[in-house]
């Protein structure tokens, strides 16, 4: 078997499932108080049994689960958007939703309000951006996908300018918090149960309709000829991807690269049929972000680094290597 032979999706699924278990157990055992895997297992089994249980249940588990969910949300959003926009460069932030969230969050920080209000403002900003881009840019059909894409990119650029303005206006004490939000930070995850619910719902829906997503990936005209009602499908994809992105932003701010990278890595490994692409991306996205977050919080401990730095530092070389291998 040569190296360019596509891997069997089943084998890849088992590999990535093991990777997920591995990354989760590493994340749970590493930190200010190092624990062995046996201690972690014991603590998980006995929630109220000493300091180890407290560390695992109160501190690490919420963060690790948030990281996994966030990574999965971003990867799935990436898959759906790349299919919707027919553009390999599409990522969850391309439609300006993260721009809206950033403007909301940073404005709230500038006003010096508490964490809950910051989250609420970023949530409202994301929803406003989602509606604005949809209203201005969405028309169903073959050529109109570019219109949606361009509207999103323009909206993002506008938000980027506002973010720069807010950073300039902010007193220097607040700038670091803002930069953390912008680069992605999983230390204050919000709304994990809701996010997990959205992931489960959209993930199941995407699996049920995975056959139609394959047809859409083959070209919009072709899809219409093969029985896809373009308008309904595109609208559903837009809102599904937007909901995933909003949830991910609530969990970890705008963490870059995961949504762009993960679907491509799976495709470069030879899997592009949605029935497999979706679950494999969810698994890899989750494990990848857990690994990156574990590095971010332990490498320079007690200093915590923004996780976005590590998603890029880990992801870019892997992607470049895979691209090179294919060529």
């Amino acid at each position, binding site marked *: 078997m040569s190296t360019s032979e596509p891997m069997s999706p089943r084998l890849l699924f088992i590999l990535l499932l093991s990777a997920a278990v591995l990354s989760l157990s590493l994340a749970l055992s590493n930190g200010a108080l190092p624990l062995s895997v046996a201690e972690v297992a014991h603590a998980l089994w006995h929630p109220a049994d000493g300091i180890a249980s407290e560390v695992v249940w109160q501190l690490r588990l919420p963060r690790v689960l948030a990281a996994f969910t966030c990574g999965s949300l971003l990867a799935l959003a990436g898959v759906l958007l790349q299919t919707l926009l027919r553009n390999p460069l599409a990522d969850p932030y391309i439609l300006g939703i993260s721009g809206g969230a950033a403007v909301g969050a940073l404005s709230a920080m500038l006003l010096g309000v508490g964490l809950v209000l910051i989250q609420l403002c970023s949530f409202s900003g994301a929803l406003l951006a989602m509606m604005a881009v949809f209203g201005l840019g969405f028309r169903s059909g073959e050529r109109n996908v570019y219109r949606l894409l361009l509207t999103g990119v323009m909206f993002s650029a506008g938000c980027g300018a506002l973010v720069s303005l807010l950073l300039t206006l902010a007193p220097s004490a607040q700038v670091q918090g803002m930069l953390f939000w912008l680069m992605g930070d999983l230390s204050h995850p919000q709304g994990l149960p809701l996010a997990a619910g959205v992931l489960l719902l959209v993930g199941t829906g995407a699996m049920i309709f995975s056959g139609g997503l394959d*047809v859409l*990936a*083959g070209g919009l*005209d072709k899809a219409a000829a093969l029985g896809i009602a373009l308008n309904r499908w595109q609208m559903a994809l837009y809102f599904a991807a937007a909901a995933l992105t909003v949830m991910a932003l609530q969990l970890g701010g705008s963490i870059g690269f995961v949504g762009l990278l993960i679907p491509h890595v799976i495709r470069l490994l030879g899997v*592009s049929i949605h029935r497999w692409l979706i679950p494999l991306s969810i698994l890899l996205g989750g494990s990848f972000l857990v690994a990156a977050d574990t590095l971010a919080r332990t490498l320079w401990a007690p200093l915590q680094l923004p996780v976005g730095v590590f998603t890029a530092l880990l992801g870019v070389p892997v992607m470049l290597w895979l691209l090179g291998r294919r060529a």
Partner: protein
Amino acid sequence: MTLQAHNLTVAIGGKTLCHDLDISIRPGECWGILGQNGAGKSTLLRTLAGLHPPQTGAVSWQAVALQNYTRRDLARHRAVLLQNEGGEFWGSVLDYVLLGRFPHRTAWFRYSAQDHAIAQQALTHMELTELAARPLNTLSGGERQRAAIAQAWAQQAQCYLLDEPLQHLDLRHQAQTMQMFTQLREQGCAVLMVLHDLFWAQRCCDHVLLQFADGQIMQGPASELLTRTHLQALYQCSLREVTGEGERSFVASV
């Protein structure tokens, strides 16, 4: 099981391509659409397929207007081969051909064994069995065209609308393709194809529709319309008739 257009006016980008067209494509008929580049052949075909809304008039299948079908229902009855699919499919050739079974698919997650059998058969017809596992985007233009034809065949429709089915194909595959659709016609399918090759139009089409650049349309039996006078007017160039072994065709005289 007739594809019918009534009072059809088709326009694109402000240009009227045909006016008040009435046409019936019956089971067992093979129609050729001929015309100059830009005359609107593809748009007319897309209109008949229900992919482009007509200005006025309506297209119906089995005496029911196309817009009264769901997209999926329609796709079970008619297959469309497009000249440009507007997409880059990332999967394998087999995955791509299987998409033709999508309208017939009943299970949520996978294609049935029967769907796979039909896709394999389609691959065999188009000599693609060896390439089945290759990513579609690594194929040559002609191989990709054969995959698209295999996909249309796998759809197992009663009506086939084909936009330049012979583009990029070598001579042997041209013959195979035309033979395949002739067979479908003999089994009672209605076939309509946009063609530039007058030889194949002569040989395989029993009816033709000549679409003139000024929006004029002539339609009728191929034997009446495929004459030098009509074709010279259609293509606006002088043609030479060539005959041999009982067959005749036209070539542009230089």
